[in-house]
């Protein structure tokens, strides 16, 4: 016995499909004219049952068919299987469908074959599950094709008996196991063979008749060709009896040969801890497309571990400790600019599944947030309480990357950094031990986590004290920037003169031919009274002629409700440089304007800090550059060009912010000497072997 047995119906009408689902059958199949349209309709009137369409390739271009199949799979939460008749061109069609569905592969798909030409198809959409392809055909050529490439073969009982060996042989020739191919048997009580001597038992639908097909020939799926409600009922009853009487099928699903072939060297895939095996993702897996890349970068990790509990995080770290030479990344939301939440051929520990949120103490506004939640989720969670926690400016960012580095957000000047709201963490250290850190427990560690957390462990829950925040004003202005340096200076002065209730940012890009230079100014004013909001914004609106303006009154959650749907599919390797600065002096502004005009950076942003951020003493957390009023980030694509253009700005800076920097060797700019010395001492104590080594490693240079 190779598979968990499935019982389905090969129907013509939607009513029979609904009846098959109601009776508890596992799947429903359609074939013939309009099969795909009928299956799509059936998908809409059923909720659970598996869906199989036998496709006529004369009517469906394979590349379009792949998208159709992925669509229905997404709409139905992964219920779809494709069946194809073996005709000339089927082998090519199988290849095209599989490749178009392989959405994790960044390059377009090209196939120039004898039967089909697909010069440059975009891949995707990514289906909800791995869509199996079953092939029909009892002649040797068809059976061999199924053995080599399909997830299933379909035939009559007689055909199965005759072809099973050949199927196994063909599979073995390409390194596949027999269990990779489900044998699907069509039972047709009205077929000519049904009247042959000895066939009667089979279509009496008795256990005794089906058992030999399972035990001797490896049948895994039975499809009864009928629309008759009474036959569907009897078949469903038979299903119950067979499942009761047969032994359990083999436990773990096998990794198909095609997946094993994509494994990367140096990773002991066969010894992934049992607790993590079911959720781990490797390059050939369907989910790989969802976890390989980040918001800004393409990645190709060899293994992504996705723990669901603190214990599983400890298991994952044990596995990482056994792979000392392999790159190791930590991932929450996948936005990290340094690019270390993915890698090439290494291990990534994704905390995405640790996304719970709960209120610990309503009177104290104390909440416990999982590292894998995203800030849009956190904002939505807090909104009904009238609370908010300033994070970054984008809701798609994950909690733990930001909350272990700083968190320069929309309420920073009024309420401080995200880390300033942290009261305690639970974390797993490099040696696998689980500790709490707060002002009272492991205070050294708690100090280090707030600014340099990625060097010390994996936080599995954050306790934050959040703020009461009602509706706020959110302004988006586009202003003329004919003299960018002058605008920067005057914007800086306006910000420093503004009340703490105002936080915001300025964005400028390279000049575009034929377009006037402009800057985007965004600001949040924490006030519910529109006239107060307008008054507070006035100094910004008067800086330069307005090209566009939009001011809305919104809950904080409305501002960070801007996370894109779906998974990250970033490509490339961006270069980002960061600096913290106290005042936007004319000399700095002149250098910045030259940087923007150079074309070396496509993104130049200044966020406001200062205010409440500066109320915290520099020595209180590992994030120490508290006196800065502004955080600057510049992004480009060429490291050489960006560094050359950015160099004149550096003399104006007082440190930088790790989260906006891609230069991993700039650790000393992120931490002033006393902070860095203390961090290195703690690194020796908590992570002496340097397990957390790939993201701004503190190193041992004291």
């Amino acid at each position, binding site marked *: 016995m190779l598979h968990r047995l499935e019982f389905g119906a090969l129907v013509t009408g939607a009513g029979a499909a609904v009846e098959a689902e109601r009776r508890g059958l596992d799947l429903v199949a359609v074939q013939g004219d*309009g099969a795909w349209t009928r299956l*799509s*309709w059936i998908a*809409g009137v059923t909720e659970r049952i598996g869906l199989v369409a036998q496709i006529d390739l004369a*009517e469906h271009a394979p590349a379009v068919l792949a998208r159709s199949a992925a*669509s229905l799979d997404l709409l*139905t939460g992964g219920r779809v299987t494709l069946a194809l008749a073996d005709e000339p061109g089927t082998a090519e069609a199988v290849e095209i469908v599989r490749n178009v569905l392989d959405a994790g592969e960044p390059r377009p798909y090209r196939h120039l074959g004898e039967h089909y030409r*697909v010069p440059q*198809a*975009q891949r995707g959409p990514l289906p909800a599950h791995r869509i199996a392809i079953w092939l029909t055909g009892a002649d040797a050529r068809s059976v061999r094709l199924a053995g080599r490439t399909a997830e299933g073969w379909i035939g009559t009982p007689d055909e199965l008996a005759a072809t099973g060996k050949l199927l196994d042989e063909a599979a073995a020739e390409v390194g596949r196991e027999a269990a990779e191919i489900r044998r699907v048997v069509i039972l047709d009580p009205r077929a000519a063979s049904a009247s042959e001597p000895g066939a009667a038992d089979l279509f009496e639908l008795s256990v005794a008749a089906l058992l030999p097909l399972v035990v001797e020939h490896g049948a895994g799926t039975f499809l009864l060709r009928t629309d008759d409600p009474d036959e569907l009922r009897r078949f469903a009853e038979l299903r119950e009896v067979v499942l009761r009487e047969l032994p359990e099928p083999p436990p773990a699903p096998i990794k198909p040969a095609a997946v094993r072939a994509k494994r990367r060297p140096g990773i002991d895939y066969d010894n992934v801890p049992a607790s993590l095996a079911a959720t781990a993702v490797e390059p050939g897996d369907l989910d790989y497309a969802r976890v390989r890349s980040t918001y800004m970068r393409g990645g190709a990790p060899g293994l992504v571990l996705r723990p669901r509990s603190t214990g599983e995080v400890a298991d994952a770290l044990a596995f990482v400790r056994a792979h000392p030479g392999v790159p190791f990344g930590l991932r929450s939301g996948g936005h990290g600019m340094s690019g270390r939440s993915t890698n090439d051929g290494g291990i990534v520990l994704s905390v995405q599944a640790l996304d719970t949120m709960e209120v610990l103490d309503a009177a104290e506004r104390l909440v416990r947030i999982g590292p894998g939640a995203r800030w849009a989720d956190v904002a939505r969670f807090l909104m009904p309480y009238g609370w908010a926690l300033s994070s970054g400016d984008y809701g798609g960012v994950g909690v733990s990357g930001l909350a272990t580095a700083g968190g320069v957000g929309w309420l920073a000047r009024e309420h401080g950094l995200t880390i300033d709201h942290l009261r305690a963490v639970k974390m797993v250290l490099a040696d696998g031990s689980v500790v709490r850190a707060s002002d009272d427990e492991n205070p050294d560690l708690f100090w280090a986590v707030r600014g340099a957390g990625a060097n010390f462990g994996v936080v599995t829950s954050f306790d934050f004290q959040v703020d009461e925040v009602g509706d706020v004003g959110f302004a988006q202005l586009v202003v003329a920037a004919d003299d960018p340096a002058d605008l920067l200076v005057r914007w800086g002065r306006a910000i420093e003169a503004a009340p703490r209730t105002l936080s915001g940012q300025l964005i400028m890009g390279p000049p575009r031919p034929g377009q006037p230079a402009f800057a985007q100014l965004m600001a949040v004013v924490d006030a519910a009274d529109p006239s107060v909001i307008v008054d507070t914004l006035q100094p910004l609106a008067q800086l330069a002629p307005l090209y566009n303006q939009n001011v809305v009154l919104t809950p904080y959650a409305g501002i960070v409700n801007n996370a894109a749907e779906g998974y990250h599919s970033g490509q490339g390797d961006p270069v980002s440089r960061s600096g913290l600065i106290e005042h936007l002096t004319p000399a700095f502004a002149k250098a910045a304007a030259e940087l923007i005009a150079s074309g070396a950076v496509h993104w130049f942003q200044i966020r406001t800090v200062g205010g409440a951020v500066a109320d915290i003493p520099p020595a209180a957390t590992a994030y120490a550059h508290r006196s800065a009023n502004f955080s600057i980030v510049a992004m480009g694509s060429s490291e050489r060009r960006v560094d050359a253009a950015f160099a004149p700005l550096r003399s104006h800076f007082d440190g930088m912010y790790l989260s906006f920097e891609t230069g991993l060797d700039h650790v000393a700019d992120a931490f002033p000497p006393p902070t860095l010395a203390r961090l290195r001492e703690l690194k020796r104590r908590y992570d002496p072997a340097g397990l957390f080594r790939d993201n701004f490693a503190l190193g041992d240079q004291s």
Partner: protein
Amino acid sequence: MTDYGHDLLFGAFVTPSATAGAELAVVADRAGLDLVTFQDHPYVARFHDTWTLLSYAAARTTRIKLAANVLNLPLRQPAVIARSHATLDRLSGGRIELGLGAGAFWDGVEAMGGRRLTAGQSIDALGEAIDIIRQVWDTSTPGPVRASGAYYDVSGAKRGPAPAHAMSIWLGAYKPRMLRLAGRAADGVVPSLSYLPGGINDYADLNRHIDEAAEAAARPPAAVRRLLNINGTFSDFGRSFLDGPAEQWAEDLAGVALDHGVSAFILASDNPADLELFAAEVAPAVRDLVAAERA
């Protein structure tokens, strides 16, 4: 005043994206809209396959009509389009119409293995396709389909199934040659307001080409319904065309209906609240205003 005498239809033009498409069809159905439509770009991987989404959405709705807006002919076969539409029309109790386009974005078509045609060729191909589709649907004429043209040769194909109702063919049409095809052979045109370079007043030119071609083909101009994809913003204070409160929208659209004979307004929006407002406040008000003028 131009009036072809059609009843007014109000619809939704929904992006066929991963999560929202089918749900928005259900929203439109419940809200009381007459029609929900999806654009079709099979070369764009982030969109659903429009025909699959439409079939699925048809099964999850009870009352609303559904159509592609418009189906990409170059990557689909006319006979298959005819049969699949007829199949779904029978399953849905006659709720399917056929929106069809000659194709655009030829790079995308070619990348998927489709045939690159010039604009003129693509209109000729569309003309052939309409003929094939009507033959497949026509099960009352004996014998197989007879069609061997420059672009499609399906002579000998079997006829049927026939749709459950007299299905309309609506063309995405803007330019004279396409409009003449519509006047000669289609049951409607469905341009998008945002693609009319001169705005809504361009519709007068569209009508002129359609009407002339219809009359030349001995068809009444009213045989071709005039639809319009619209987009706009619901806001508290009226500012401009389709930017204002629902009452202003109603006046704007009633004006278009009465000036240009447009009888179907399809709102491009993925926002459930917009669709509900369109159905609840704009549609009845437009109907009242137009009925009053017609009376």
